């Protein structure tokens, strides 16, 4: 083996391990933000493989499009959505200053319990199934997830940094990936050629895009335009500015709550805490809003409906 071959094998091994391990970390880490960072590692690995395959323009495009564009969108969506740190952030024992710096990432434990996202993911705590699964256990342990979760029932919740493995999905994907690898290994070699691509492949691609594939090129431009319009149209502020407004609208649609025996139906009567835990979110919101239900009644209903008709 010459030096160039050894170097090529070395680069291939590093990049392949980066891409596959990044994808595995993406699929198994509980924190969604960390998943995004692992996905970036996987993209960089694949971009390096593109460069190694002398498709340098595509390697550049991979870095620019996926990491510069899509990953920023993904991380924005992760931070926008509830509970981006996974359910592990809710019961971490953080001091006040840590809680300040992770503002928006963590919620106080009672609020996290109310939403209940990802709280019931016990049950399938098995960690077998993915072969490299244990390798992400080392990272992030500096966050010291000692469950200082006073007074709450932890249930079957495991505090590891990885999502519990879904057995059937793991089995299916293992069978699929293993089958693909077995097919690749069993198949006789493809008719490969020793020809090398031209060093100015970017110019060739540009000429092809402007001549033979011009229709596809222009259609892709039109597709992007329609995609921008669709995304803006879908994600624009609609009838409900936030969830509370929508809850108010839904509450106005509900039948009035039954009046319990022996208690005057006054709105500002103190509600015992055990009764407060039983009411649903909508009714809780109505209790919080106070006042008679007719305040949310026909006027607000009509306004919301006209706004919805505009949507």
């Amino acid at each position, binding site marked *: *083996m010459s030096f*160039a*071959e*050894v170097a090529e*094998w070395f680069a291939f091994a590093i990049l*392949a391990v980066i891409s*596959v391990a990044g*994808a595995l970390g993406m*699929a198994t880490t509980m924190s*969604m933000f960390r*998943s995004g960072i692992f*996905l970036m590692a*996987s993209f960089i690995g694949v971009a390096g*493989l*593109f460069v190694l*395959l*002398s*498709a340098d*323009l*595509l390697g550049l495009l*991979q870095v620019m*499009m996926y990491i510069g564009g*899509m990953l920023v969108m*993904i991380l*924005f*969506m992760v931070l926008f*959505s*509830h509970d981006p740190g996974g359910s592990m952030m809710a019961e971490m024992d953080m001091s006040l200053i840590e809680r300040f710096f992770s503002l928006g990432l963590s919620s106080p434990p009672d609020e996290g319990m109310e*939403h209940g*996202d*990802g709280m019931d993911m016990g049950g399938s705590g098995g960690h077998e199934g993915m072969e490299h699964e244990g390798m992400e256990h080392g990272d992030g342990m500096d966050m010291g997830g000692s469950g200082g979760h006073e007074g709450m029932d932890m249930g079957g919740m495991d505090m590891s940094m990885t999502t519990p493995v*879904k057995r059937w*999905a793991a089995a*299916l*994907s293992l069978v699929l990936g293993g089958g*693909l*690898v077995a097919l*690749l290994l069993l198949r006789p*070699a*493809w008719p490969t050629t*020793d020809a*090398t*691509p031209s060093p100015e*492949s970017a110019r*060739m*691609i540009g000429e*092809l*895009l402007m001549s033979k*594939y011009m229709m*596809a090129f222009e259609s*892709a431009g039109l*597709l*992007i335009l329609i*995609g921008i319009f*669709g995304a*803006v149209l*879908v*994600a624009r502020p*609609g009838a409900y500015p936030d*969830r509370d407004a929508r809850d108010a609208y839904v509450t106005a649609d509900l039948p009035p709550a039954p009046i319990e025996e022996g208690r005057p139906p006054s709105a500002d009567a103190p509600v015992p805490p055990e009764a407060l835990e039983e009411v649903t979110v909508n009714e809780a919101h109505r209790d919080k809003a106070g006042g008679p239900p007719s305040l949310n009644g026909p006027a607000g209903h009509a306004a919301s409906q006209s706004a919805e008709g505009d949507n």
Partner: protein
Amino acid sequence: MAVPLTAYLIVGALLFGIGVYAVIAQRSAVMILMGIEVLLNAIGLNLIAFWRFVNPEDYSAQIFTILIVTIGAVEMGIGLGIMMLLYRNRGTVQVDQYDSLKG
């Protein structure tokens, strides 16, 4: 080319399997979109590997990959827009809690 074609294809197959696992097993819609991105990456890697080893004079495979990246970007934008709308209306991005139509 010291590294054979099959090595690249095996990397692509592993990425594909991991992407399928992420799409099936994850409950958050953002994670499902990430899995789809891994799937598209695996497909692009396969296309480029075949281009490099079978027919490197024809650059059509790179153009296909560029189109795949484009469509992936558009799909990601619209998917995140839909997800933002769903989050605004339902207050969650966990796909198994979108069960309004469940009988």
